[in-house]
């Protein structure tokens, strides 16, 4: 039987940090609670205090000012619906729209998704390909950590007990850039990713990939940016029909991707299946990005 637990609602970041400093690792931050409450019910958590942060108004905003700044309490529904995010970060909006069901999206937060650090966190791959940085506020001030370094292991992040994740900063899409998030599930909704892949690709005038960001989830202990595969994509010129050169380059990227992941067998799928779909996702992501940039360019031409 879990002992009685204190539930403390805070109204400001300072108040939250003060509470966290007071209780250290006996405290557990609770935002939307969609992960926390399940873990608590399964006796995986036994905090002395829940620090409830949903009432911190300043963390609920999404602002675009050059880069995108998302408060930790921005919900999945907000990410999915906000026109600024849908245009500047379509992969993030798509990812958020696939998180759980309507109710989960309504209360589940971005900060919770990242701090929970599930291998299947859907917002992680799109943010990884947007070079995101997380902002942590502690008693001694603000600390910024690249998202890529924030994930240390399954359910384990680079956050000190007294720190609150306050926001995320991410680079929006640039010209001749496109991105996509592809999530594999078994049924049509309410699925934890069997595998997920985000790609953000830049193309030059000739349609050659000039910059590439790739990230995956559910194929290893943490969401992961796959740099070797990104490098292999550079110089690739994907067209309707892959040229031999293009195809070889993709094969290299696929090999690099396969080498970087460590999928397992679990209740949702087999490691073999995860390995089988990844190359297909990569290939589809290149096609989708290429088509999106083309469509974007022809739109620009028209206007």
């Amino acid at each position: 039987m879990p002992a009685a637990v204190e539930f403390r609602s805070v109204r400001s970041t300072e108040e939250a940090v003060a509470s966290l400093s007071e209780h250290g690792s006996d405290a557990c931050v609770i935002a939307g609670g969609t992960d926390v409450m399940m873990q608590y019910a399964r006796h995986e958590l036994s905090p002395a205090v829940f620090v409830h942060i949903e009432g911190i108004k300043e963390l609920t905003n999404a602002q675009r000012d050059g880069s995108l700044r998302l408060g930790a309490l921005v919900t999945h529904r907000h990410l999915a619906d906000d026109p600024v995010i849908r245009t500047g970060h379509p992969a993030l909006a798509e990812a958020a729209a696939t998180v759980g069901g309507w109710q989960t999206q309504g209360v589940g937060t971005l900060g919770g998704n990242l701090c929970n650090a599930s291998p299947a966190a859907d917002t992680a791959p799109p943010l990884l390909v947007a070079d995101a940085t997380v902002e942590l506020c502690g008693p001694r001030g603000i600390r910024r950590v690249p998202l890529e370094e924030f994930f240390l292991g399954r359910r384990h992040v680079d956050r000190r007990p007294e720190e609150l994740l306050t926001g995320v900063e991410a680079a929006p899409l640039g010209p001749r850039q496109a991105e996509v998030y592809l999530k594999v599930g078994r049924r049509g909704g309410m699925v934890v990713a069997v595998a997920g892949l985000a790609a953000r690709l830049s193309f030059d005038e000739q349609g050659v990939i000039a910059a590439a960001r790739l990230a995956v989830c559910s194929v290893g202990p943490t969401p992961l940016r796959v740099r070797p595969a990104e490098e292999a994509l550079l110089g690739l010129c994907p067209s309707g029909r892959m040229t031999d050169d293009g195809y070889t380059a993709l094969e290299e990227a696929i090999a690099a991707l396969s080498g970087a992941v460590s999928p397992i067998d679990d209740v949702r799928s087999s490691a073999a299946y995860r390995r089988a779909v990844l190359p297909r996702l990569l290939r589809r992501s290149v096609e989708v990005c290429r088509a999106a940039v083309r469509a974007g360019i022809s739109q620009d031409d028209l206007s």
Partner: protein
Amino acid sequence: MTSVLGRRVTRSDAEAKVRGSADYGVDVVLPGMVYGALWRSPVPAARVVAIDSEAAWRVPGVLALITGADVDNHPTGLALCDQPLFGWPVVRYEGEPVAAVAAETPESLEKALDLLHVEFVERPAITDVTSALSPDAVLVHPDWASYASPSGAEWPREGNVVCELLSDPGGVGEVFSSAAHVVRDVYRADRQYQAYLEPHAAVAEYNSGRFTLHVAHQFPFNVRDRVAHALGVGASAVRVVGHHIGGGFGAKLDVALEPYAALLARATGRPVRMENSRSEDLMTAQCRESAVVTISSALSASGDMLGCEFDVVFDSGAYAIDAPYLASIPMFAVGSVYRVDRTRVRCRAVYTNTAPTGAFRGVSGTYLVFAVERHLDHVARELGLDRRELRLRHLRRNGEKMLNGQTLADADILRECFDRAEEVAPFSSLGKGPYRGVGMAACVWLTNPLAGSAVLKLNEDGTIGLVTGATDNGSGAVTMGLRQIAAEEFGIGASDVLVTMPDTDVAGYDAGSQGSRTTRVVGMAVIAAAAQVRERVLSIASDHFEAAAADLEVVDGGVQVRGVPSRRLTLAEVAKLAASNGGPITGAGSYSTPLPNYSPTCATGFLFPAFPTPTYHLHVAEVEVEPLVGTVRVLRYIVVQEVGRVVNPTGVVGQIQGGVAQGLGYALWEWLESEGGRYRQRTFESYGLPLSVDVPRVEVVTLEHGDSDSPHGAKGVGEPPIVPVAAAVANAVSDAIGAEVDAIPIRPEAILEALGPLGASEHRE
């Protein structure tokens, strides 16, 4: 008054269910009630060496702690007495009850369960049917030979084989040796969990030597008998009170928590409530059995099916439950829709160290029809024949017999099913385009014949009270159908028929909500009861009007002189007159469907010998495969179903839509993988039920060839719509990917493998 039959009437429980005030089994709260739970085995096979309960007993609030050592742990069971109350001293599956505990609060209960210490010696577990059948297999029940059936029935069984059905008309070998073609397939199907909303629960009371059990159960009279047997008391010492059922689909036909709640109530002298957690429920519900089906056909050069070998091995789990009955179902899955001259059928139910399997809507039929219909598609492909043509060519005709010797007087309905489906969408027009496919599957299904009864009373305000032990498992069979049938007899609205909840002390016997029997069987009992009520009504009216009863009629909620509506008494007036003329008016009716003629010598081990009130079904599925990841989307789904008579269109369409949804889940998303005797999926997070977004609108065509011996012609409707679904979907997927599909569920893994390596798929687009 126009007929209430065929109309959309409101369920009697609609408002309560919509408002959330309906009282389900889990809602029962009694004064002084305490809490009970089971300590379940964490391992699939073991010998219990010692149970140390001292620490558990010391937890404040603990009231009772019962193990196999404290009770007469004699084995009992539905079909075979092989299941003791407690896994003691031998544990045969993960989740088997080892001890039952009761405490004042859920908190002390949980603490006591934590502190109960059970010492095991683990034993090698038999976890799949193949190893169970191997000649040197460890026996799950070394004492199998000592077990008896509660009914005294006997059948071939030995070692790990719980039941063997064998039907061999002779000459099958000869047909195969002279055949132009032989096609052989092996199909596999995994388990399926019934996945109702309300988990198993029970509240028990013990007073003056009698038990009262509050349950939400499909078969209260079976609970009465099974609890009485397990506790060694007479059936009349147990009263079972039914509450609204949050779904059952077959998993609430046998007992689960009821005997333990009764034991704990007796031990504590307090009402005891027990409820499975979702994981406990999933782990221990008698889910649909996994199976391996081998089917071979001997064919002529032109593709006539001359002979068939049908071999089924299914996993009964650690206990028999109803497996000895289910072992007969293969006799109706092959040779019923399609004519085959000589067919040999063998079915073996096998013990393993896994959770016992049992009844699930469409018992065994789902994977048997899957095997038969997949095999037909394979045959068609092998011989270059049109799939629909091949089927039409072999369809049974009126008067032909099934393998059990039972005549299908109306089998031509099958052809009508095929014609009507073609009218909705020509088969050859569906499944066009890359990665799209179409499949069809047909079956014959039964309406369960087992007994039921009803008492009708004419209430003093002219309404009709319907007292029955029949249960409404959500289908509306009682809350709509039986009320409509009763209302029809008096020309009143269904809202003027008030129906009781089941109570074994109050109502006559009822064989439970199973096999689509309630409307058909209990409907007949209602009509018989109504006849008695009407007779009294006519006799009282005849005294009143001084007219011959033959000149009177019961219409529009009253009785009147034929053709003279002005000389009329309302039913309420008749009820008042009855007080001084023979007393209150009641009528009682009982019914069970006579078994059709069959040939008792057609098979050995044949405990389920006929398919009474047969119905006919054709399903057509159109699917699209996503080649990128191997998932399947169902684009169109067409059902043509013979129902006899639509009593309530909402009920009929709802049952068909629901059956298809559940069948799609079985075919595509509901994985219940067993690994070393343990399920991998243990919650709804990983056990993937279909969502509304996954299920297309089902296009339903009902055929109404009324059965002259059924209430207004109505036949069973609710069970069969799940039966052909996996078969139709698998055929459609196979058509879409141009490769065989030989396992249920159809996994994206298998589809990707069939589609071949990356790149190959692209060329097909």
